[in-house]
């Protein structure tokens, strides 16, 4: 049995920025190895865990995508002993001053992310939030040593350690989307107890935060009959209370909108009701902002569903999730897969075929 709390904390203690997912992929691969029949890495770095359906012959297949990459920063230059930076993934620069980071040079250098103080700034800019050119990382070493240890393009990850908020809430960086990687891992563990009628491809995708490369290429290679993107969604919290947000700890969301196949959305909703599993419908009229965007229109088209885990403070070093929501997302996924029969496609998509 996977201890969910410690597994999540392990996942969010690792770097694994978009394009450089190796550190986290290694740990996920270790966890998946005993849970799947085959483990492989795609040409561009996504991790594929394959659970074969029971019986000979060809079986329908489902792809479960959870991206493993994380947002962060990169070194763009050095001057006066300070490291200049650019963001990887969508960041509100206003949360950066005062963060502790790790600069991944020849060795890991702890550093302070800060901004040029008002004292040195043009009067008109005093009190303003910093632009990217006014931010820097100070590693506290002599300039000559920094030049030896750090080069352009070196990665910078948030150093924030996980916070265990007593009784199942965890805060830390990269819970978007390592929380979903954990849900997918729990699901694989549950599936071990079942003979499956469908082939299952668990995919930890790369570069979701920077262009969806992993989801696009893996879904093309695998050509599943159905794909599910598991990602985090916005939880209600201070400053976030509008219709885009969902209660923390009250179950996952099921995406409804143009990016999802309506039959799959309806199927998951019915299933959650049947399982007595709390959930909310997340209206995503145009786009889901997830791996499903790259998968839906890929190859000859892949019907997609999206499951969301509510998370506060997205894209900050202190995102927050409730473990129960991860468990419920995993139960919904496992419930879906274990109920699939070899002819379920016809049943799920019956209306679409009229």
């Amino acid at each position, binding site marked *: 049995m996977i201890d969910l709390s410690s597994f999540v904390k392990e996942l969010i203690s690792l770097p694994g920025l978009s394009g450089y997912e190796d550190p986290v992929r290694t740990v996920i691969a270790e966890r998946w190895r005993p849970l799947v029949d085959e483990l492989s890495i795609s040409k561009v770095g996504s991790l594929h865990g394959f659970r074969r359906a029971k019986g000979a012959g060809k079986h329908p297949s489902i792809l479960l995508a959870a991206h493993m990459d994380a947002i962060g920063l990169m070194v763009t230059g050095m001057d006066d002993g300070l490291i200049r930076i650019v963001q990887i993934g969508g960041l509100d620069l206003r949360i950066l001053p005062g963060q*502790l980071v790790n600069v991944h040079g020849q060795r890991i250098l702890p550093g302070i992310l800060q901004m040029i103080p008002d004292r040195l700034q043009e009067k008109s800019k005093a009190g303003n*939030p910093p632009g990217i050119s006014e931010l820097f990382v100070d590693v506290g070493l002599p300039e000559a040593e920094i030049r030896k240890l750090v080069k352009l393009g070196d990665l910078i990850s948030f150093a924030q350690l996980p*916070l265990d*908020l*007593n009784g199942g*809430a965890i*805060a830390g960086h990269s819970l978007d989307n390592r929380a979903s990687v954990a849900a997918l891992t729990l699901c694989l563990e549950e599936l071990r107890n079942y003979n499956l009628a469908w082939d299952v491809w668990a995919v930890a995708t790369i570069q979701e935060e920077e262009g969806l490369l992993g989801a696009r290429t893996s879904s093309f290679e695998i050509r599943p009959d159905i794909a599910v993107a598991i990602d985090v969604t916005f939880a209600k919290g201070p400053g976030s209370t509008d219709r885009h947000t969902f209660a923390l700890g009250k179950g996952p969301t099921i995406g409804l909108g143009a990016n999802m196949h309506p039959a799959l959305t309806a199927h998951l909703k019915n299933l959650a009701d049947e399982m007595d599993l709390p959930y909310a419908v997340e209206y995503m009229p145009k786009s889901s902002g997830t791996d499903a965007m790259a998968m839906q229109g890929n190859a000859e088209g892949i019907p997609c569903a999206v499951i969301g885990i509510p998370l506060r403070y997205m894209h900050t070093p*202190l995102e927050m999730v409730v473990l129960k929501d991860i468990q419920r997302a995993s139960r919904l996924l496992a419930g879906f897969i274990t109920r699939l029969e070899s002819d379920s496609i016809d049943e799920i998509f019956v209306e679409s075929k009229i």
Partner: protein
Amino acid sequence: MSPKSNAVQQLPVIGSAQIELLERLSNAVAVSGDEREVREIVIESVKPVADDLHIDSMGNVLVTCRSKSDHPVRVMLDAHMDEVGFMIVEDEGEGIYSFEVMGGVDQRQLPGKAVIVGKDHLPGVIGTKPVHLTDGSELHSAIPAQSLRIDIGPANAGKLTPGDCGTFATRFQQSGPSLIGKALDDRLGVATLIELVKHHPANIELLASFSVQEELGLRGAKIAAVALHPDLAIAIDSTPAVDLPRPDRKENSLYNCKLDGGPAIYIADAGTLSDPRLIRFLAQTAAKYDIPYQYRQPGGGGTNAGAIHNALGGIPSVSVSVPGRYAHTAVLMARLADWENTLKLIYAALLDLTPDLLVPDRK
């Protein structure tokens, strides 16, 4: 052996024991008005060597180390125990609390930080709205402090009470020549003063004030000075090193003081014109003992000297600060060498201090 090297050998140094003490002090939570945790470390550290120790009505720890001479100069050394932070002011339910900032923290330093709150050091988060849900125009203004909340998670709901204090959750670390942690303003001063009490030179009467509420307006030092009744005073603090590149690439002439420049001797700040006899004496002492030092650029800001020099009939005062970057934020940076040289300079000055220093001479 030359007299100079002999003298230098007598000066105290920073070793692993001193760094461990600074680490404890930096990690302790002591927001202005609630300095208990640092006060306990101070008492534990200085009680064995103090001739007299008492805690006054506001919580200042006042320590006397008597002299072996007949008419010693009575020297007050002050370092403030308190740090900037927050007070919880309202429980909004589900583990979410509104808070007020204690001390001068720029609101741009608050969003997205980990905090520890209350006597049990409950972890919490100052979260922000996701960038995805933020209007492009909002990104050009600072997030107002009053819109922020401390979130300790739904399972901890109700575990804080309005009135509880907290601060940034940063843990102390060392990296190369640098010290990195929260509240180095003024735990560097507190750690320095503890060493000076432990090694107090016998020629002077040392009156140490580990003071409260500096960050709220020098409140503790004001009454400490009256109680201690010194002949002169040195405030030991940390002052901002703004030795960073200017965005317009012009020469930075507003650096205040510089890391690696040694202890910063104050000439003038918003609250005090340092006593010129003391400025001169410190500079001469530094030269004599070969200790690097710098003058802090005269300008704004202030230390407890601002309250002390105004007390009683006037107390000749000066400040000596350890330069530190990023004061009043979640993480400060200072240099071990600057700290050690600050300790050495003040110690050397005490060693050489004689009553002649205070003869009227204001040339």
